[in-house]
């Protein structure tokens, strides 16, 4: 008895310890679960946005190829396909001309003299840190020098870690200047002793894309043999239209922005495609495929691929003088079906060999286009003069675009190689299948890595392109390393950034970091909670934007029209509409807060819960509003395409044409009356032109505080007062 008396406190101590330990582990598991599905939400939405942009581009390409020259739509969009206005190098040099641009006395930013010195490059860093902007004269000058240098570089750079040099490799930066500054702070700026490789995606989403470019270019000019840049899929003007870089440049450089963008198009096309270190480590942005062949890649004329999304033009012309890209476009992916990728926690099942993937078929558009064409013929007469000129120039362009004659098969092959390099993602299963989620490149498996490395006698692939929570991730038996250098990418606290150091032993040494002191103050739980709320907010918006389709889907299950569906049906219906492959059951408690009786969900109540209200929109048809909201990114992109002089304004007439385009693309009816109503609401000063930003704002189509509006990623909302989080039970 005395024995048990003395043992009792000990046993309770163990019990207590075990209790707490068990509880703690449960807490960790649940937090990890929340973190995973939050991540999955952001990633799904991000990838489906990329897919949407590619589809839009393909759609516009299709229009180009199918509209007659007298069509208005064609005229509106043809300019984005006219990639090289000026072709000869000497003409380019004239176009770069910065000499006429005067720098006013009041300008307080840095002044550059060439050749650039390291002090100037560092000075530029400091200036940007202090929120200064480089004058357009110097920007143009810098770009000119950069272009001259890039033209001399091979497609694949080869560097060595001779003696004791360590190479530092950085992944996606996406306009996040704070991260670049942090890297330079921790690791030192580039120098002869400190070579760097930057692995693409310098621009878009973040708000300081142009500053990042200028910094990278200037260090490259100072240390041409110690700073290497690889092209990423965002170094592409088509992508830039949607993801913020175009807008950033036009906003910061109101007078010369357009020229700067045009030059950057050229510069992007001249960026090298990959870097090889010590002949053993391959560094490239996206990845590889089962057909990647470095010997082909070494020989391509990379500058012909101004946008990786556009296959090279063939020299075959129709009698109308338009280039025919349809045959090559056959390789592009079908828009009739949306494929999804499972969570980053799970990996896609192989869908079949690449060769038998569908041809694109936009036949469902053809009837609408015909109808449109007929309407347009009536209005086209006043456009003909302009059009004739356009056509003439198009013909010239086509004839002069490329003096290298490439057989169509080779061209297709080359193009696919480059696309794969910039867009592919690794997967866990063996094989190689098309990357339908993003719409470009492929998913490649460990066997492909193994084969590739053996064939080229290499040991490691370092790539970027995918955001990782820790800033990096190994896969394929540690033969592939994903590196991502934009911390807090989806939201404050969502992920760390990382860079890699590689010495002569070629063993990667990873350094992680996280920008913004705010994140350090948040505990892990607060961080997850915050990101989770952010993700759920985005998700609710997406759900609301699909209200009509969801209603349809629910009604299919609710045959008796009770307004209720059971949980299983709710989850199926939502997934069938959203195609995001999210764990809807798990998210249900966060998404549906209206009380349900005996497990049924009242979906009308639910929609009321989700509803997003905007000002002055009562007289606008609700379903139109919903459509606008759902496709706001596409809408804004189309606006920017139509706004040919990049002024931020489009005329009423072009505005109407935009709607016609959109209605064809979305396959829905937007009547003239709808358009007039909209126009009246926006053109408040009735001067016949519409301010794009005002339009998007008028319908709350942009969250003014969202990253997209500030040029940052579309997910982050303003950082709320952290002290408020303390008492928040949801955190």
């Amino acid at each position, binding site marked *: 008895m*005395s024995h048990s*008396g*003395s*043992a009792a*406190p*000990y046993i*309770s*101590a*163990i*019990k*207590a*310890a*075990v*209790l*707490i*330990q*068990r*509880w*703690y*582990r*449960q*807490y*960790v*598991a*649940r*937090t*990890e*679960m929340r973190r*995973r*599905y939050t991540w999955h939400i952001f990633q799904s939405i991000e990838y489906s946005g990329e897919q949407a942009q590619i589809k839009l581009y393909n759609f516009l390409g299709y229009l180009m190829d199918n509209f007659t020259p007298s069509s208005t739509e064609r005229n509106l969009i043809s300019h984005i396909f006219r990639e090289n206005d000026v072709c000869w190098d000497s003409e380019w040099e004239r176009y770069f001309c910065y000499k006429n641009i005067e720098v006013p006395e009041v300008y307080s930013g840095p002044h550059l003299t060439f050749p650039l010195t390291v002090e100037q490059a560092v000075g530029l860093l400091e200036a940007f840190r202090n929120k200064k902007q480089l004058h357009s004269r110097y920007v143009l000058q810098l770009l000119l020098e950069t272009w001259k240098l890039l033209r001399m570089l091979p497609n694949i750079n080869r560097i060595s870690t001779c003696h004791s040099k360590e190479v530092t490799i950085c992944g996606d930066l996406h306009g996040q200047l704070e991260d670049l500054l942090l890297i330079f702070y921790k690791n030192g700026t580039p120098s002869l002793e400190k070579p760097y490789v930057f692995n693409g995606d310098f621009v878009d989403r973040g708000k300081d894309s142009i500053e990042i470019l200028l910094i990278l270019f200037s260090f490259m000019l100072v240390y041409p043999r110690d700073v290497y840049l690889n092209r990423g899929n965002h170094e592409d003007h088509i992508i830039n239209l949607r993801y913020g870089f175009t807008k950033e440049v036009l906003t910061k450089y109101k007078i010369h922005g357009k020229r700067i963008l045009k030059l950057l198009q050229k510069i992007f096309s001249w960026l090298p495609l990959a870097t090889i270190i010590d002949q053993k480590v391959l560094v490239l942005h996206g990845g590889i495929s089962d057909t990647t062949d470095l010997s082909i890649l070494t020989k391509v004329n990379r500058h012909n691929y101004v946008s990786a999304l556009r296959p090279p033009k063939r020299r075959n012309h129709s009698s109308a003088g338009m280039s025919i890209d349809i045959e090559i476009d056959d390789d592009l992916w079908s828009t009739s079906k949306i494929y999804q990728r*499972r*969570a980053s*926690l*799970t*990996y*896609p*099942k192989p869908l079949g060999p690449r060769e038998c993937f569908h041809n694109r078929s936009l036949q469902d558009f053809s009837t609408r286009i015909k109808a449109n064409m007929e309407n347009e013929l009536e209005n086209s007469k006043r456009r003909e003069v302009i059009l004739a000129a356009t056509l003439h120039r198009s013909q010239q362009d086509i004839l002069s675009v490329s003096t290298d004659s490439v057989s169509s098969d080779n061209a297709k092959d080359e193009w696919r190689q480059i696309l794969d390099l910039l867009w592919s993602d690794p997967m*866990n*299963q063996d094989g190689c299948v098309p990357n339908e989620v993003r719409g470009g490149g492929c998913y490649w498996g460990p066997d492909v890595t193994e084969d590739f490395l053996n064939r080229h006698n290499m040991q490691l692939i370092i790539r970027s392109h995918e955001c990782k929570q820790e800033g990096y991730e190994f896969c394929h038996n540690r033969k592939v390393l994903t590196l991502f250098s934009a911390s807090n990418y989806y939201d404050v606290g969502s992920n760390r950034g990382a860079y890699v150091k590689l010495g002569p032993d070629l063993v990667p040494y990873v350094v992680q970091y996280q920008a913004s002191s705010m994140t350090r103050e948040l*505990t*892990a*739980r607060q961080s997850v909670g915050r990101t989770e709320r952010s993700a759920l907010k985005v998700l609710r918006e997406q759900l609301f934007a699909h209200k009509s389709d969801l209603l349809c889907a629910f009604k299919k299950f609710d045959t008796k029209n009770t307004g209720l569906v059971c*949980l*299983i049906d709710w*989850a199926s219906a939502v997934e069938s509409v959203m195609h995001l492959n999210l*764990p*809807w*059951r*798990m998210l249900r408690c966060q998404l549906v807060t209206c009380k349900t009786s005996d*497990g049924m969900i009242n979906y009308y109540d639910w929609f009321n819960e989700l509803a997003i209200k905007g000002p002055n929109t009562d007289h606008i048809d609700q379903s139109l509003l919903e459509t606008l909201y759902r496709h706001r990114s596409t809408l804004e992109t189309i606006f920017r395409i139509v706004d040919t002089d990049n002024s931020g304004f489009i005329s009423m007439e072009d505005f109407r044409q935009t709607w016609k385009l959109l209605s064809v693309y979305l396959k829905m009816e937007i009547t003239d009356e709808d358009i007039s109503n909209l126009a009246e609401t926006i053109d408040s000063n009735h001067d016949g032109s519409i301010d794009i930003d005002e339009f998007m704002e008028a319908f709350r189509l942009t969250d003014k505080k969202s990253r997209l509006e500030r040029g940052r990623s579309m997910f982050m909302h303003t950082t709320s007062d952290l002290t408020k989080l303390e008492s928040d*039970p949801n955190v």
Partner: protein
Amino acid sequence: MAPKKDPKAPAKKAEPAPAPAPAPAPEPAPAPAAAPAIDLSSVKIEFSADQVDDYREAFGLFDRVGDNKVAYNQIADIMRALGQNPTNKEVSKLLGNPTPEDMANKRVEFEGFLPMFQTIINSPNKAQFEDYVEGLRVFDKEGNGTVMGAELRIVLSTLGEKMNETEIDALMAGQEDENGCINYEAFVKHIMSV
């Protein structure tokens, strides 16, 4: 004046402490060590269809390979994510006391997981708020509602299913007052509020 037992007690405490070895080695305390693995085929699944779908979804989230299975070493976490809190030992027993290699490499499909989960749910060990508070009261030397943070750390890292330093730091972040004491009722409320 009964002979003082206390001096012996610490000695007793120190003794078995090294005995709880890492994960699968069976321990002398509550459950019979050498008992054979539970016969899972005899477990009757009492979940509703809705519940099974919920669990299937969660299970899928943990499948990192795409083969519709999860590794042995993930089972405990899935159960915790679904609201249970088994000890690692209980889970190990369900899996037939696997070796560390087995834990990392062997996988189980959802149908195999369900009976394990049912067993855990059926087990009577459901701790409530009061149980946790009682458990911590053991360390309340002065009976004033507080425990020493330092003592708690030692206990958590040496007894039961030991926690490592990082885990303990995360758990105790911001809980200790300036004297290094923790008000344990508030602590339990805090940790249970996830």
